[in-house]
């Protein structure tokens, strides 16, 4: 029931975007954050086989079935999170980066992230003055159940504050910022631990960037429709 094949014809030198018919699952094992349940992961394997050639490419990703919602609470002004419909009390840690000279390693990521889980935390906030963290970071957050709050590269200290105000309009090249943001989203978007994209640290990005990010990162209407049983 979980092997699905579709036939596609791609024109010469063609580049297409193909959306598969959705796959139905009855009561899948859900992915839960640390302390709320198991971090169930499924391996999603996509292969493309070309007639008269054979297997042409394949791609694999550990994937967690989960629904993450968050809204601003009108009473407290704080952000409330729900995972799979269940409210969660966020116990989070601040994360800048693994090593100042970017000597990044899987072992270090695993150790640091497991440490956060052992401290009974369920979220890590990646500060905007650091990195868009790497797939290895997210992989271990998927495994240990750490939700990730990932900020883009804007900080209150460097952008739009101070005397005199520095970088009032953020980086010089807004198109470059958006290109990097979009590519980063594509790199990280399949990780179940990714809970929230945030414009920057203590600062709202310049208006055009902020609106473009909000537009690009809204939940696509396609996924809001209620399928009838």
């Amino acid at each position, binding site marked *: 029931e979980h092997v699905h094949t579709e036939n596609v014809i791609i*024109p010469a030198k063609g580049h297409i975007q193909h959306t598969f018919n959705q796959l139905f699952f009855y009561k899948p094992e859900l992915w839960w954050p640390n302390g709320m349940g198991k971090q169930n992961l499924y391996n999603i394997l996509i292969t493309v086989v070309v007639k008269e050639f054979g297997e042409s490419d394949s791609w694999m990703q550990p994937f967690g079935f989960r629904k993450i919602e968050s809204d601003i609470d009108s009473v407290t002004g704080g952000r409330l999170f729900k995972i799979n419909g269940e409210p969660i009390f966020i116990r989070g840690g601040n994360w800048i980066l693994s090593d100042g000279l970017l000597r990044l390693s899987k072992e270090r990521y695993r150790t640091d992230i497991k440490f956060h889980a052992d401290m009974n935390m369920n979220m890590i906030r990646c500060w905007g003055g650091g990195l868009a963290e790497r797939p290895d970071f997210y992989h271990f957050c998927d495994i240990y159940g750490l939700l990730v709050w990932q900020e883009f590269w804007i900080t209150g200290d460097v952008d739009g504050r101070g005397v005199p105000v520095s970088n009032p309009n953020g980086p010089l090249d807004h198109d470059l910022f958006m290109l990097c943001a979009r590519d980063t989203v594509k790199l990280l978007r399949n990780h179940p631990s990714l809970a929230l994209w945030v414009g920057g640290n203590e600062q709202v990005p310049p208006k055009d960037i902020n609106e473009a990010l909000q537009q690009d990162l809204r939940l696509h209407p396609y996924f809001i429709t209620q399928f009838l049983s």
Partner: protein
Amino acid sequence: MTEIGKTVLDSGWLAARSTEVNDDGVKLTTTNPPTLGPQSRWMEAVVPGTVLGTLVKNKSIPDPFYGLENEAIIDIADSGRDYYTFWFYKTFQCKRLLNQYVHLNFRAINYSAEVYLNGHKTVLPKGMFRRHTLDVTDILHPEKNLLAVIVHPPDHPGTIPAEGGQGGDHEIGKDVAAQYVEGWDWICPIRDRNTGIWDEVSLTVTGPVRIIDPHLVSTFFDNYKRAYLHVTAELENKSSWNADCSVNIQVTAELEDGVCLV
């Protein structure tokens, strides 16, 4: 024959300061490839990694994390950008078959670069947080391939004021790069502003059709009893004929002790 799939290029790299290398990228990757040696300016490099990471590994500079050693390393504001503009070099083999295609992938470079492969040049545009993928199928050699990458620091590395402060003089904020590198209350300034090939480099071999950036989304109904997995992927046909494909999705749940449920 090269299997379909990804090969990570994370060993056997060399590096040298650009101001100490007389050859250009075409010569380095054709007639005059670099070699190590007592007289050579080339050193073993750390890739993925930054210029400082390589210099620390070779003990050309002290490790800035100990004591006041960071003060002993010249800052880019004083040395100029060329001082931290570095060449990274490597050879590799990749025997591809007919109708196979090879791409060279950089998952992140800080801040801009030019890539030379067997004498062919490609410019990698600016930006610390973007991937670069080059189709190198037609410029590969059957035996040894020579790859050289010259990496330039961020355009606005800034100057660290005497009093320090969060983000130094904030110039780094003009670029799309990590801002902590000008120093913060928790870290001293990073002297090369993290210039380098700081994330994974890989070669991917595919057939005529390759899969790009699939997107997986799950939706839930009836109190999570009913779930749907939505998959979208870009598919690129590199060949000059129509490709009649079958695309398969297989979902396996890993149970305990390595037992898989399909």
